[in-house]
């Protein structure tokens, strides 16, 4: 049974180009360093330019909404987002590589992670971008259309839950099953908290005031705090995982089809 990708990667093949040892992790490091770069761009766009984080008030009046959504800053932010969005996929690339190294984990979990993130990008990030760009493009839409775009933008930004839940779920399961300890256990526990905070965002669909509204202390702030903590921990663990990966494990040009 030569099913595992790992085996195929280890098998030397005729058209191998031997890379110098110091370059063998180059692709992973590029993906890795895209994460801080992406999140800097992300915070510039969402916090500084867009005013999307922290979210605007769910109870804003139509006039306030129109004023917010037609701000030029927002449209510049959305254009930058359209430009840099693809960086989000680079991080899943390197995480999948590390997940595939795990022992006791078949490709199922890394692929589910990949697919869940591919889904999540659309409702969690692209929809808000579409909605706000639409509003910014045409200030002369009627106010009620701006209100709809605003609702749709913020609610899909804060309230798209299922895709992230699956992503966290498969990641935590993979860490627990892994017998090689690629990622530490505590990262799995942290991932479960992140999963739970997604669930706590459920009331944003029902309530517009208080701690569970889309800008509320529990639905937004606690969830964001835990997400930021999770992302930092992930970066630390990922850094260690790439650094500790033995060079002999790395592909030298041949891959399985």
């Amino acid at each position, binding site marked *: 049974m030569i099913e595992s990708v790992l085996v195929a990667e280890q098998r030397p093949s005729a058209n191998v180009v031997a890379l110098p040892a110091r370059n063998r992790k180059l692709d992973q490091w590029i993906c890795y360093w895209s994460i801080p770069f992406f999140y800097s761009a992300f915070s510039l766009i969402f916090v500084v330019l867009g005013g999307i984080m922290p979210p605007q008030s769910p109870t804003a009046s139509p006039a306030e909404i129109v004023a917010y959504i037609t701000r030029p800053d927002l449209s510049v932010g959305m254009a930058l987002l359209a430009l840099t969005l693809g960086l989000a996929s680079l991080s899943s690339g390197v995480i999948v590589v590390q997940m595939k190294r795990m022992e006791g984990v078949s490709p199922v979990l890394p692929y589910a992670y990949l697919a869940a993130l591919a889904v999540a990008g659309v409702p969690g990030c692209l929809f808000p971008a579409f909605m706000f760009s639409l509003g910014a493009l045409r200030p002369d839409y009627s106010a009620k259309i701006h209100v709809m775009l605003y609702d749709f933008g913020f609610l899909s930004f804060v309230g798209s839950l299922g895709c992230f839940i699956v992503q966290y779920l498969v990641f935590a399961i993979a860490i627990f099953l892994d017998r090689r300890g690629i990622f530490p256990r505590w990262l799995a*526990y942290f991932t479960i908290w992140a999963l739970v905070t997604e669930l706590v965002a459920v009331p944003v669909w029902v*309530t517009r005031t208080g*701690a569970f509204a889309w800008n509320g202390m529990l639905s937004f702030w606690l969830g964001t705090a835990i997400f930021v903590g999770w992302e930092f921990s992930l970066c630390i663990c990922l850094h260690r995982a790439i650094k500790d990966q033995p060079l002999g494990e790395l592909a030298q040009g041949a891959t399985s089809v």
Partner: protein
Amino acid sequence: MWFFVIGDLWIFACYFIGYSYDRAHDASAFLDGQRLLSPGMGVLNTAILLTSSLFVALCAQATRAGDITIASRFIALGGTCGAAFLVTKVIEWHAEVSAGFPPSTYPFFTYYFTLTGLHFLHVLLGLLILALGWRELRKSTKPRAEFVEASATYWHMVDSLWIAIFAALYLMR
């Protein structure tokens, strides 16, 4: 496991901050909502969870003493009580929803459903962990006491959280 337990406790503490803060701002509305709960059900829930905690604690003792058969029986009893808790909770929710207290009518009920719902998920996860502990006791030739102890620790945390929720949601005035 201790990392998870302590962290989880603090995350719940954040929910308590939100609850107390909002409650302080709209005390009478919260009290109106609270009056609609049945504290009797809360007492029943607490008693069930305390009992299950007792069984799980005894299981940890028995595991350390090497009485594996007895330990596995205790952990099964604890799990059964946990399942009973879930059943009573679902009955209670059903009664409340059919009596017409959707989360949006009273701010209190948003917290009530979120906190009890989260706790419900913890119980589910706890049951899964207890089941893994049970399997360790039944299947493994030499069960790891630390594994069983870790699952017991998690279960007691679920119990402690419920005690705090019970006081904050059902009884506090």
